[in-house]
């Protein structure tokens, strides 16, 4: 049992335990707390997979941004009776049964596939498949290059049918514009209503 396995065990236990606690608890503030535990440990798993940039992004955007957004939502909508809206015991039993069946199906599926053979087959059929050299390195710089267009992990000339660059410059631009538009739209959607009612109330008073 080496250090990697011990770390994987700790992070996997925290991730799964946090997720199960999110599903079980009825208090929305505790759900947000367990979500932080689960997502933070998942970023630890990303670091274990040598995906340092994805792990850091997960910590910054998910744990630092999205969860704070959710907690603001909780604070703005949770007043007294809405702190815990319980489901009925029948619904809880139903969802527990469905969840156990679901997870049994996933466990059976994952265990019955020989993933090493799948990887070898893919590597044999795709001439431009990613090289193994990437695996023992951290990937921050390679991801930056892939966003600009060149791919350090693939030999793109090996497959003539592939055509031009398979970098991610255009998707990156599209997604950044998409994020900007969505955030402006969300800000407008969240505050337009109250202003309108304030104007109406002012008009009625005159």
């Amino acid at each position, binding site marked *: *049992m080496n250090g990697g396995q011990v770390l*994987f065990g700790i992070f996997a236990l925290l*991730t*799964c335990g946090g*997720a*199960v606690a999110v*599903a079980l608890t009825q208090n*929305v503030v505790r*759900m947000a707390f367990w*979500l932080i535990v*689960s997502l933070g440990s*998942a970023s630890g*798993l*990303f670091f*274990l*997979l*040598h*995906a340092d940039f*994805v792990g850091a*992004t*997960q910590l910054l*955007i*998910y744990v630092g941004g*999205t969860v704070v*957004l*959710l907690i603001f*939502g909780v604070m*703005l*909508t*949770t007043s007294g009776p*809405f702190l815990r*809206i319980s*489901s009925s015991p029948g*619904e*809880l039993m139903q969802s*527990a049964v469905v*969840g156990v069946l679901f*997870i049994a199906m*996933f*466990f059976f599926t*994952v265990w019955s596939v020989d*993933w090493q053979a799948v*990887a070898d087959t*893919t*590597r044999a059929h795709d001439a431009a498949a*990613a*090289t193994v050299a990437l695996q023992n390195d951290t990937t921050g710089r390679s*991801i930056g290059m*892939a966003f600009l267009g060149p791919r*350090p*992990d*693939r030999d793109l000339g090996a497959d003539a049918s592939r055509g031009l660059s398979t970098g*991610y410059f255009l998707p990156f631009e599209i*997604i950044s514009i*998409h*994020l900007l538009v969505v*955030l402006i*739209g969300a800000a407008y959607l*969240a505050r337009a*209503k109250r202003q309108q009612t304030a104007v109406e109330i002012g008009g009625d008073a005159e």
Partner: protein
Amino acid sequence: MEGVDLKLFLLVGAVLFVCGVICMTSKRNGIGVLIGVELVLNAANLNFVAFSRYTPLGLDGQIIALFVIVLAAAEAAVALAIALNFYNNHLTIDVDRADELRG
């Protein structure tokens, strides 16, 4: 990292996914449904990154995971705006009360 198989990461992802689906279907609080969606997206992310490490998927998996993180942030912002509007109109966040369009 020796000795940890791809299967174990996929199993962690499966647990996250199932918990997220249960959360989405059984919570009556609108914010709880959102938290379930975040769990499901995170399970997909974990699978993408694990495949990028253990199979010839390469960097593609990690980049798709980054895209998913950004899209999840956008989704959370819009869904939260909708939830706040619903709360302003109905004075509750219970999704079972949003039944005005029921046929």
